[in-house]
């Protein structure tokens, strides 16, 4: 006993900090096409290894290779590209608006656009999504007007959320897009409830949920896995491992010890780990999980291995905590560029088309922005509109005390 060593505590730290060169030596992406694609009705226990692999389809030359190649029509590929490029164009424009003091806040999904885009196309439009603030691409893919997004971000008189939500916290039941919470993680277990309801009603719609690497530490993540596995709910549980949670690297969420996909194993759920910057791979794993869920075989956990290419949000300055050049060094590249290269290699796209599309989308988001600015701030709307926006929808019917307060607000 006397000779027990003194204990010490391990505090995870990233290998590089500002001023140092980036270090991705721990990320050794395997060659594309190297992993088998099991049948969708495989036992979860038979594919535990996939939790430690990385499913990739696009190789370094932009060719689609291996068993996971989803063999998509060029039309679908171009749709995916368009969704991703729209997302990026909107993000860029809105961040500029924030820098100009026109809006209070914005969160981009730069570098991660393949996830929402690829998954949206593999899901059915009536499947319900439970997104985080980085799945704006899902809304775009499902045809929600970019103009309406700008109205929300501006909290303007046409904001469908009536000014009640922080920018980017969209909601659209009609587009299968669950109302985003400011609280991390809460939607993950709710999605399981939605999927359970669908199964209880003998419906054929499934649910998909997203969570960040950092937020996997929230209890809701665990409750989701527990309920999904026990009731075999038709849900896809996506972990978007973009390496960072504000200033915290993924080692602070457990990424030093094992993969995030491995969390599924303790619940007997199948786990797929995918190159999140590879549109084709994202599509392919999602299609596998969709088929499994829709065949009543239960939930799948997917870890999307990606990188948050910019700051956490407009409130953040990543140069304070990570090497300035880190984003550029990310070994899995840029998802838009990779899909573009693939399409061009297929002979289904050209630089000219690309430039033209970028210009078109730039015009689209400018137009959306103009619309938002023309609508004018909801905060300056007339008192009855404001009172409804402030006091409506707290309850199904507004009770006396809120009616009194609305009146008091009106009186100043």
């Amino acid at each position, binding site marked *: 006993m006397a000779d027990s060593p003194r204990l010490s505590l391990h505090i995870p730290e990233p290998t590089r900090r500002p001023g140092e060169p980036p270090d991705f030596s721990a990320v050794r992406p395997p060659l594309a096409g190297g992993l088998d694609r099991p049948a969708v009705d495989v036992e979860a226990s038979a594919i535990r290894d996939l939790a430690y692999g990385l499913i990739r389809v696009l190789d370094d030359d932009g060719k689609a290779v291996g068993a996971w190649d989803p063999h998509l029509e060029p039309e679908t590929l171009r749709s995916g590209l368009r969704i991703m490029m729209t997302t990026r164009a909107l993000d860029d424009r809105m961040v500029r608006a924030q820098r100009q003091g026109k809006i209070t806040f914005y969160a981009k999904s730069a570098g991660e656009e393949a996830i929402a885009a690829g998954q949206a196309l593999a899901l059915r439009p009536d499947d319900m999504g439970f997104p985080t603030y980085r799945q704006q691409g899902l809304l775009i893919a499902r045809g929600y007007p970019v103009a309406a997004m700008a109205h929300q971000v501006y909290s303007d008189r046409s904001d469908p959320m009536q000014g009640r939500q922080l920018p980017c916290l969209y*909601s659209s039941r009609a587009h299968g897009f669950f*109302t985003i919470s400011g609280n991390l993680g809460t939607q993950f277990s709710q999605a399981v409830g*939605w999927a359970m*309801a669908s199964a209880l009603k003998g419906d054929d719609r499934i649910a998909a949920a997203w969570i960040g690497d950092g937020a996997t530490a929230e209890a809701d993540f665990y*409750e989701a896995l527990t*309920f999904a596995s026990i009731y075999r709910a038709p849900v896809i549980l996506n972990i978007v491992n973009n390496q960072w949670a504000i200033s915290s690297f993924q080692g602070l969420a457990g990424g030093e010890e094992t993969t995030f996909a491995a969390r599924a194993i303790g619940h007997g759920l199948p786990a797929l780990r995918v190159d999140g910057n590879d549109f084709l791979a994202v599509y392919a794993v999602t299609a596998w999980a969709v088929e499994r869920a829709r065949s009543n075989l239960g939930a799948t956990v997917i870890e999307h291995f990606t990188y948050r290419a910019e700051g956490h949000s407009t409130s953040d300055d990543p140069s304070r905590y990570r090497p300035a050049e880190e984003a550029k060094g990310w070994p899995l590249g840029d998802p838009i560029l990779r899909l573009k290269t693939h399409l061009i290699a297929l002979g289904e796209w050209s630089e000219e088309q690309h430039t033209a599309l970028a210009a078109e989308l730039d015009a689209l988001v400018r137009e959306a922005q103009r619309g938002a600015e023309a609508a004018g701030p909801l905060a300056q709307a007339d008192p009855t509109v404001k009172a409804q926006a402030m006091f*409506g929808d707290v309850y199904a019917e507004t009770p006396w005390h809120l009616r009194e307060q609305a009146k008091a607000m009106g009186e100043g």
Partner: protein
Amino acid sequence: MASMTMVQALNSAMDVMLGRDSDVLVFGEDVGYFGGVFRATEGLQKKYGVTRCFDTPIGEAGIVAVAVGMGAYGLRPVVEIQFADYIYPAYDQIVSEAARLRYRSAGDFIAPLTIRAPYGGGIFGGQTHSQSPEALFTHVAGLVTVIPSNPFDAKGLLISAIESDDPVIFLEPKRLYNGPFDGHHERPVTSWAGHPASEVPLEHYTVPLGSAAVARPGAAVTVLTYGSMVHVALAAALDSGIDAEIIDLRTLVPLDIGTITTSVEKTGRCVIVHEATRTSGFGAELSALVQEHCFYHLEAPIERVAGWDTPYPHAFEWDYFPGPARVAAALRRAMEA
């Protein structure tokens, strides 16, 4: 009509709603095959099948979260938290999610769930089987908080709660499950049989949310109370001979302010009684409201009788439980002031 205990009346409410509406479902820890540790869901799984009434893992956060998701789908989940003391792991899902879904989505998504939980003392349950956490919900905009005091109201209010499109926190005074306990623990246990409020229709009916009841009309002093304490207050009025008007609030939010102010304007005196710890309890809100609405009618300070500001200690059930003697003393003080 049948004579029912409160727990039978609650069971009947769920039975009726499961029968009427295929979107209603009931789940929670031990509520399925076993029928709940207090037997509130007894027989429901057998009658409606395992997909309408089932057991869950012991994860209150998960239970409420999946209920929120089901509500968003279009179902009307009724979940049981085994004891109100165990609701805190679900607090974030209740406060940040269920309560705000409609507001933040501008009506796009709603959370029409009912969260049932036995609450309160009187059963030697110690610190973690005796709590009265209602004030932790009344502070949260978007939640409806309901507490019945007898079988008839319990069934009618629970049906209203299930039919409501708002999330309802439905706290059940567990000490009243099997009889109208009035705090006289030294006397023989009474059962609901023979009590007028134990006559409960077998079929569907509602008691509206947001409406109080006058449990005893009186002229001398107004007592605002709910749950178990309604019976304690009735006993205190009897014991003290003070002609108290006892108001059973039934719904705490939204509150029936009209019934309250009418009574206090008449009596000019007010005593508030609850089991929950005093500081920042719902009694504080009641006191503030009465003072605001009836200041010029008040002839005596508003009194609060409440649980002490301590955890509920196992050995001292009857020193903690605000019994008829404490309430009667407050009635006397209010009359003498």
